[in-house]
């Protein structure tokens, strides 16, 4: 298994779907900044556009009654005089306006917000999504990436999802239905602060078993160690702060390319995760 740890990420959650070992699925869910392909180098063989279904109004049928605007929670559709304006960047694609229109004057069309790609990287089935620059909503792209990539009968295969940084909706969408989350942090005040918030989301809100990887070990202070001990969070791997590792990652090498001895630890990490309560 190739496994990338990025030394400069303050906090990254790597949620897993835990299964018996066979050809793994890898999903880069950081659709705002998808970088896993730079390390895994898949050969892309399939691509599709994704987005949301947004309303299109047939003005021949529309009576400008304003019901669509009234039911839209996002102010994405509005009636001004004899015109109906749709703001695609505000629309969540919920379909309320379409269903509520008394004249059935609204139908929906795909508003493309990004692309999904698939390819193989050695034995790994690799998937990633890319949000188009200027689009605001990452969640629909992540949701559709997961639907496309994870088949209903995935049960006998490991699934690794690389999450975006932070803790808001794109991270939550990535972690939904995962079996466990691996939180990657660094032993600094910033790393500790962000780890605490990530633990609140993964463990307290979503109820996932969690474990921690300490990256750039040796920098900073002992706050992260003390916190993990107090919370009973297992630290499954420490990647030391070493210039050679940072340089290797800078060029797109994975941790096991740079330091093959970590392969054993990563295999152990995977086994431990599978046994988390």
């Amino acid at each position, binding site marked *: 298994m190739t496994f990338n740890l990025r030394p400069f990420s303050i906090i990254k959650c790597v949620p897993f779907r835990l299964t018996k070992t066979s050809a793994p699925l890898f999903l880069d869910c950081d659709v705002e900044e998808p970088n896993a392909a730079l390390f895994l180098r898949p050969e892309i063989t399939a691509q599709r556009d994704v987005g949301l279904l947004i309303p299109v109004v047939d003005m021949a049928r529309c009576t400008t009654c304003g019901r669509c605007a009234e039911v839209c929670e996002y102010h994405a559709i509005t009636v001004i005089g004899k015109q109906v304006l749709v703001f695609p960047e505000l629309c969540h694609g919920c379909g309320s306006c379409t269903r509520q229109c008394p004249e059935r004057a609204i139908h929906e069309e795909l508003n493309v917000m990004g692309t999904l790609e698939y390819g193989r990287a050695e034995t790994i089935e690799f998937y990633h999504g890319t*949000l188009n620059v200027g689009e605001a909503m990452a969640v629909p792209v992540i949701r559709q990436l997961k639907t496309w990539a994870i088949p209903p009968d995935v049960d006998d295969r490991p699934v690794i999802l690389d999450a975006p940084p932070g803790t808001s909706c794109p991270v939550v969408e990535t972690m939904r239905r995962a079996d466990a989350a691996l939180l990657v942090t660094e032993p600094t005040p*910033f790393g500790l*602060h962000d780890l605490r918030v990530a633990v609140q989301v993964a463990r307290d809100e979503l109820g996932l078993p969690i474990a921690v990887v300490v990256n750039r070990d040796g920098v900073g202070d002992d706050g992260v160690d003390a916190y993990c001990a107090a919370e009973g969070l297992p630290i499954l791997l420490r990647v030391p702060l070493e210039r050679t590792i940072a340089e290797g990652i800078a060029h797109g090498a994975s941790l096991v390319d740079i330091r093959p001895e970590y392969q054993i630890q990563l295999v152990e990490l995977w086994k431990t995760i599978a046994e988390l309560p």
Partner: protein
Amino acid sequence: MKQLVILSGKGGTGKTTVTAALAHLATQDCRVVMADADVDAANLGLVLAPVTEETRDFTGGRIAGIDPAVCIACGRCAEVCRFDAVRVCTHPGDAYAVDPIACEGCAACFYECPVQAITMTPQRAGQWFVATTRYGPLYHAHLFAGQENSGKLVTLVKQMARLRALDDAADLLLVDGPPGIGCPVIAALSGADMALIVTEPTVSGAHDLERALGLAAHFNIPAMVLLNKADLSPVQAEAIVAYCATQSIPLVGRLPYDPTVTDAMVRGEPVTATAGPVANALRETWSMLQATLFVVKPSEK
């Protein structure tokens, strides 16, 4: 008053470290107001020792709730929900329930429920704070774990900070942005006079820089680039310098790779509080930014 927003695309490139240093340097001849626009992981306060003066609740969107006493378990709500937020009942006759984390508050179920069992309730989604620091007022916020509407909260924090900057006749509004290119970043970038993009010479840094610059261009905001950990990979560094040159994006500094930068963070200080190669490089960066942002230096007004 000028508004400078610090962005990176990729997380962990040193945005907050740079913002805190610029706040420190700018106060030497500017009046500064700061806004931390990373509401998921607000770190600027950790190096500015803020004293909180005011705490306010942030109300996000509304979410649906189903009254089990009224619900007839017809399943219409689950049928119309496109966010997979309605839990399908396992025993016939049981009431349906909404997963508050998945609910996007669209109210589709509210309008479709034949027996009006659904109510929409506003969510207390976070808090925002006004604080004083040694370099000026700091506006920051905390979005509760797993909540939506981070863009809305960023907009609120920035609006409040901007009004304060106008009230105080400040010269500079310094905004520490979130990572990525999505809604909170767009909210952080909106209305800025300049975006400073902090990057690093790595394959992912270069890739994310391109997207962050694309975003600034999309919203017609002039951008400059600061290369952090510049000597980590000479090959990648030169690629980024060359890319900036082809795009006519000014490079306003190269900070050396120096793990002792973290020591300042541990002490709760900006890196410019003590002398060193990174501090010196940042002083030059600030002079260049100042020359671009202000035609006349605030101190010479």
